[in-house]
């Protein structure tokens, strides 16, 4: 297939070439600014945004990509969907935040190949140990910003230090990396953790 960049593809959409047949009214996608995005070897591009429409029966969803432009996505049985665990389109809800990789088609549509819903990956320090979880103070990168505790609860499928049989034995002050799904109430359900020495 002809490989096009994300900028070229979104430009095509903005010019009106192709949209999924849908009852949803779509606005032209916003043009990208800044440096050109690079396509990976499999031809997919990266998109992120909130779900503003989802239709499992038709295998489609719509996100408002960064800046609010709606982007239509086809979802097939081969699309890998993760929301705390590998799941299917019925698990996705309006308002879920997605990172995804998608294959642009020449007809102006995207086909999602991989979708991650409400996923976060944080590094920080254990500030309190609680039953079934802990409080996490987040570290920054270059800067030490204001500390903001996040409530973390263990997902049933939690894997610690890449060993599924390890139960986290945490102590206050310990450095941890936590990956999981953030829920509507702001609680982070941890699916993977790395606990430093």
């Amino acid at each position, binding site marked *: 297939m002809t490989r096009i960049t994300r900028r070229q593809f979104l430009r095509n959409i903005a010019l009106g070439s192709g949209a999924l047949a849908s009852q949803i009214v779509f606005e032209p996608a916003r043009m990208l600014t800044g440096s050109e995005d690079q396509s990976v070897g499999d031809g997919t591009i990266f998109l992120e945004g909130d779900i503003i429409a989802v239709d499992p029966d038709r295998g489609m969803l719509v996100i408002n990509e960064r800046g609010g432009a709606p982007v239509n996505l086809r979802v097939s049985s081969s699309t890998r969907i993760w929301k705390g665990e590998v799941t299917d389109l019925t698990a996705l809800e309006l308002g879920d935040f997605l990172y995804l990789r998608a294959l642009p088609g020449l007809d102006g549509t995207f086909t999602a190949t991989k979708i*991650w819903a409400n996923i976060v990956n944080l590094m920080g320090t254990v500030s309190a140990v609680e039953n079934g979880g802990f409080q996490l103070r987040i570290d*920054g990168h270059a800067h030490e910003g204001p500390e903001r505790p996040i409530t973390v609860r263990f997902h049933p499928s939690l894997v610690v230090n890449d060993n599924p049989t390890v139960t986290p034995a945490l102590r206050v002050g310990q450095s941890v*990396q936590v990956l999981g799904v953030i829920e509507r109430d702001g609680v982070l359900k941890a699916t993977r953790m790395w606990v430093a020495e």
Partner: protein
Amino acid sequence: MAYYYGSASWFCCGHAGSWSSRCADTGHGSCGNCESYLDHAAWPKLKRPGYPDCNKSDNCLSLPWKYCGDTLVVYNRCNGQQVTVEVHDCGPNTNNYCNWPCGCGYPNCPAIIDLTPNAFSKIANLDVGRIPVRVTA
């Protein structure tokens, strides 16, 4: 050019004060132009003209200094996929996981680079979180 071995994870450009579950809502990193949807990365030793040097690898690994915009090649040691990234932020802290074994099956070794979700998802699934890598710098 030299090879550096450790682990890679993914991050949102910016800092703790602007934390959000949405990378697009966070900042733009130490260089001011880091973007989650581009092939950008954070490197533990960053020089920024006009600003203090950032060094997050004090005690664990000997890594070279990089400047904003420098290019690195990150190779996933488990699946052979690689991505070329530009350095636009400072981190991660390499001191955690010092002396832990590193290689495919042992990804919780010294963290040497953080990739944007775009770059990381080119060489691994985001839900894996952490992968053993070789960085050409």
